């Protein structure tokens, strides 16, 4: 009973604390709200926010060849109509001038020998992408498409080269028509390989349909929640130090109570406080921002893992500190840096390749990173089996921190 009495006392004190009300509840919601507004969460419709359509002028000097026609056709495809408005023009100089006058964002100039170059194993040709340096997204999209097509043709060149060499070795003479045929067959095969039949990009079956703004704000809200839950846990545990300095902890030990009861009360109080904080943040963010956090059971598991991990870290930090004067270093240094490392994957989500992978790995060096990973998985519709490994890591780390911290605290209080 005394354990619950201590927990209740601590809870009352926490709920009367402006620190908890402000940093525990208000700040994470406000921060996420600011990001939400920044990404057009209020003004836009279901799509959240819109990319402006990029004006593109295409000059196809390879009118006779299939290569130029193919590239123009891809750029003018209906599926890209929301992103690119492509106009065919005859003159490269006028297209560049249009870009200079900012009447167009990008000019794509296909050289006259484009098809010949891409079908000749030794051929070389460069498609020029002339773009407005003040734009980034539109030219990036166009350059990406052009690169994809040119890469495809590079495959054709290799195919023609290899076929010619083999046929030549067998005594068969390969003329230009045959080379063109090989190149076109390769192109058809490559198109089939990357077409709908062989590559299907799908979201998980249970993944909620969300707007673009929510897709952006969801991970940010998760990161903010993780960061401030760890702050709250540390603050809750650090109240032991405060009680020691103010004399209430030594006074407690003059009453018939054990150290285990005091630490147990502290744990229960922190646990209930964090459950409340997470419930409020999940509920409000779902209501205000429309974030869908996933099914109750996986959410409960990730919540449990994060709380145990956060309290474990809080107890460990408390056990390592000498006095409350050092808490500034903890909040400003350790928890903030760990929090930022943990959420790094949220803000580097668009970094592709090795760099993106490095950020993901780096974030897992801190407990915050595992918690962020759990919440991001939930937002993508992960089920119990998918979050269990992450939860297991959080529980293991949390229990390890907690055990070490309690042993040290018990020695200190003895």
């Amino acid at each position, binding site marked *: 009973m005394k354990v619950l009495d201590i927990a209740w006392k601590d809870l009352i*004190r926490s709920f*009367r604390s402006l620190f908890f009300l402000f940093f525990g509840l208000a700040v994470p919601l406000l921060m996420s709200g600011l990001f939400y507004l920044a990404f057009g969460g209020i003004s836009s419709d279901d799509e959240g926010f819109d990319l402006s359509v990029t004006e593109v002028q295409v000059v196809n000097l390879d009118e006779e060849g299939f290569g130029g026609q193919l590239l123009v056709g891809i750029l003018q495809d209906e599926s890209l109509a929301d992103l690119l408005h492509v106009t065919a023009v005859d003159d490269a100089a006028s297209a560049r001038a249009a870009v200079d006058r900012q009447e167009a964002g990008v000019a794509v100039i296909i050289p006259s020998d484009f098809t010949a170059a891409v079908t000749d194993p030794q051929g070389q040709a460069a498609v020029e992408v002339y773009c407005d340096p003040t734009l980034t997204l539109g030219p990036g999209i166009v350059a990406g498409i052009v690169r994809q097509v040119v890469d495809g043709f590079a495959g054709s060149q290799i195919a023609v080269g290899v076929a010619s060499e083999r046929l030549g070795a067998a005594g068969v003479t390969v003329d230009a028509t045959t080379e063109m045929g090989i190149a076109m067959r390769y192109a058809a095969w490559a198109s089939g390989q990357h077409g709908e039949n062989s590559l299907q990009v799908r979201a998980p079956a249970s993944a909620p349909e969300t707007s673009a703004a929510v897709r952006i704000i969801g991970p940010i809200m998760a990161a903010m929640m993780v960061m401030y839950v760890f702050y709250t846990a540390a603050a809750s545990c650090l109240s032991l130090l405060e009680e020691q300095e103010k*004399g209430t902890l*030594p*006074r407690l030990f*003059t*009453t018939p109570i054990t150290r285990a009861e005091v630490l147990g009360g502290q744990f229960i109080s922190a646990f209930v406080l964090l459950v409340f904080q997470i419930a409020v943040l999940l509920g409000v963010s779902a209501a205000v921002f429309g974030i869908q956090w996933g099914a109750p059971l996986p959410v409960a598991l990730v919540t449990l893992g994060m709380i145990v991990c956060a309290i474990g870290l809080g107890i460990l930090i408390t056990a390592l500190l000498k006095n409350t004067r050092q808490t500034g270093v903890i909040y400003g240094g350790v928890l903030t840096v760990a929090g930022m490392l943990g959420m790094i994957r949220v803000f580097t989500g668009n970094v592709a390749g090795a760099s993106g992978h490095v950020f993901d790995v780096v974030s897992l060096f801190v407990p915050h990173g595992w918690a962020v990973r759990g919440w991001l998985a939930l937002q993508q519709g992960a089920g119990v089996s998918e979050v269990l490994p992450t939860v297991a890591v959080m529980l293991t780390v949390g229990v390890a921190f907690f055990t070490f911290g309690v042993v040290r605290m018990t020695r200190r209080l003895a």
Partner: protein
Amino acid sequence: MREEGAICVQNLHKRFGDVLAVQGISFDVQRGEIFSLLGPNGAGKSTTISILSCLLTPTQGDALVMGHSVVREPRKVREEIGVVPQEIALYEDLSARENLDFWGRMYGLRGAALKQRVAEVLEIIGLTDRQKGRVGKFSGGMKRRLNIGIALLHRPQVIIMDEPTVGIDPQTRRNILDSVKELNRNGTTTLYTTHYMEEAQELSDHIAIMDHGKIIASGTHEELVRIVGEMDRLDLVLSGDVERVLGEWQGIAGVCQATAADGKLTLLVDDSNLVLPRLFESANRLGVRITSVEIQEPNLEAVFLHLTGRALRD
């Protein structure tokens, strides 16, 4: 070790690293009496209190509180005692009632008994009208009263008070001293530490004087005063080189002890009527002016001076 007293301390030692804070002290506190530990800061009073409150474990020796060993039965000792710490140890973000309610629960009170006792203690400490007020907004005196009230909640047999009047105004101090007397009238045993000689003198049935971790004298006020015999204490304020005068006066016939602090000289003398003219004559010769003279009957201050060669305030 005898067990009939409320507190029996036997050969208690406490070492912190190289520092021996308590050096083999022994004393008995009888049931229902007020026992004061008197001594300057750093004498070892608070360490002794901490051991008796089961906050510290003695390096050597033991103490029985109401028959229970602080080493072997700390939980039972804690059930018997109420501790008033030197610092105010309250939750400032809780109300007076919430504080009493919480601490009452820590002492094992529940339900109607707790509610009734909280109301009684609020009445005793005169905070019934302010029971719902946040402690953080209380005056220093109100906090002190509440600090004491918490120790009374479970009607302990023994109350241990560690310098409860440090840094408070005279009115609150008076209030606290009256509370201690009232508790004593109700049969509560009180162990009281102070470095104010007047408090020990006014309150105590027995006094132990501590210095450097040892009890250097113990007994009733009268017994202690008898140590210095019929000597008078003179407090003199001088204008001039006090240290030079001190050296000169230590050799004057009739002066048993002399100390200087804060420009003031304190002397223990056989007969002030005989010694004072010699002091004035010496002062004239040294070119020093005596601006104030106070003659006091023998008291605990004089006892401490006699035993240690230092004033209690040092």
